[in-house]
């Protein structure tokens, strides 16, 4: 669905940048579609700016219970074979993956 430029909240370059960070290979059509979808998401979120929030501190979470904590106790038994059971490849107890090039 073509988008009028005035409505785009994210540039095509922006879409490509985010896609690359997310390791997504997109063709031109998918780029355009994502530009449209992301723009409408951003537009929707922008509605928040209509609220008067100058007296509200930035909030990462709602609710005020605080993060629960556990005691420093080892509860997990080693189960290497179970952990490796679904691995596409293993060598000994290691996961084997395509060669990482630095």
């Amino acid at each position, binding site marked *: 669905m073509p988008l009028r430029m005035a409505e785009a909240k994210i540039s095509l370059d922006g879409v490509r940048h985010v896609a690359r960070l997310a390791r997504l290979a997109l063709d031109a059509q998918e780029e355009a579609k994502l530009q449209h979808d992301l723009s409408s998401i951003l537009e929707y979120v922008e509605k928040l700016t209509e609220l008067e929030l100058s007296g509200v501190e930035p909030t990462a979470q709602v609710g005020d219970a605080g993060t629960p904590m556990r*005691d*420093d*106790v080892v509860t*997990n038994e080693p189960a290497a074979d179970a*952990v490796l059971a679904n691995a596409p490849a293993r060598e000994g*107890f290691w996961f*084997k*993956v395509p060669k990482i090039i630095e």
Partner: protein
Amino acid sequence: MAISDAYEAVIGLEVHTQLLTRSKIFCGCANEFGAAPNHNVCPVCMGMPGVLPVFNRRVLELTIRVGLATHSQISERSIFARKNYFYPDLPKGYQISQYERPLCVGGYIELPTGNGAPRRIQLARIHLEEDAGKNIHRPTASLVDFNRSGTPLLEIVSEPELRSAEEATAYLRELRSILRYLEVSDGNMEEGSFRCDANVSVRPCGATELGAKTEIKNLNSFKFVEKAIKHEIERQTAVLKAGGKIMQETHLWDPERGETRPMRSKEYAHDYRYFPEPDLPELYVPPELVEQIRAQAPEVPAARRARYARDLSLSAYEIDVLTQEREVGDYFEAMVAAGIETKAAANWTMTEVLRASNESTETFSNAVPPPAQTAALLKLVAQNEISLNAAKTAFAAMCKSGQDAATTVKALGLAQVSDEATISQVCDQVLSAEADKVAQFHAGREKLFGFFVGQVVKAMKGNANPKVVNEVLKRKLAMAGRPSPSDLPSSGA
């Protein structure tokens, strides 16, 4: 001013230290080094879909301990963040870290400067994160072990206030010493429980703006930190002098070639898209907890240095050596408490104790005898029952056998002979065997007195009381002619 003096270095260090907890930061897997691959893992630290992290209370307590020891403000409300990047050692595709509102802000570390005022280095922040797994690379594949994934990691970030490679190393040593005093980390660079990245830039002297920096990674020993920073300062200075520009990039230290070189350029590497971790509610730090930890805070190296400087007559160098490791200072203090004179206890700790511990692969407390036994040994020296050399022999044996001082001295036959009759007999033997030297002595070669003492001590396998040997020899030589005993040197010259 030489041209090479026209630039100054600006260095900031990022230190990652693993915390000494029993379990990982967000799950109940064991936090230990050296287990078989993928044996200390579970769905949480493997990043399986649908799992939830639960924060380890001990991690918070240890972090507060470090925050207080570095004079930081402890944030009452802190949050975790996701740092997003892809790498095979990061199973979730993000690392739980902290970005906004880290646990500790605005602290500092003071470096000793011999006898002057300590040099204060400000800290930007101290925050928590989880460690990643480990990769090893084979010719055709890479292997991944997630045992380390989820190990609690403290990142301590200095302000760019360090001005030389030597100062950076001194900062690192002091920080490691603090962490070991606090028993929050074992500070082992080789095993990776204490890791350092260095941000290095240079700028014209007097400039206030920072130059473009490079980040150096792979610094796994103090020696490499110093060498790599030195190398990078020289490299950047040369580039700037030649009219070039420093690229902001990440370098890896190559210890074999002794140089840093840029990592393959990752143009997106620093776009981590941090956002608050939705799986972990805000972290509230109860002020009572902070006060409780403050009340139980162990002494830090700077406080111990100050106490020694105030209470004991030791040199700045001696204080530095005795206080670098908590257990070394504890050992020295235990010997003093057992009645050994300060200087003697300090000397023995700095030479014999540190040598034995450095030569051993055991932990410090297993490498050396209990301080009470070492004190018992030194008392035998003070009471003239054994010589200082015999004490050294006995100490080395005690380190290996674990036997007490008295038993060891007896078993090795190290007890010092002070009996005049025995010593007199040996003196006679020596003097008659060296009749020509005795004649030279009486002809005026008084230096030979030391030689006679040496021969007697040697004949008695080092166990003769040198004071008695001196007295007996003086008497015998005076009897045999001139000069009078009072003209003679008092011991081996």
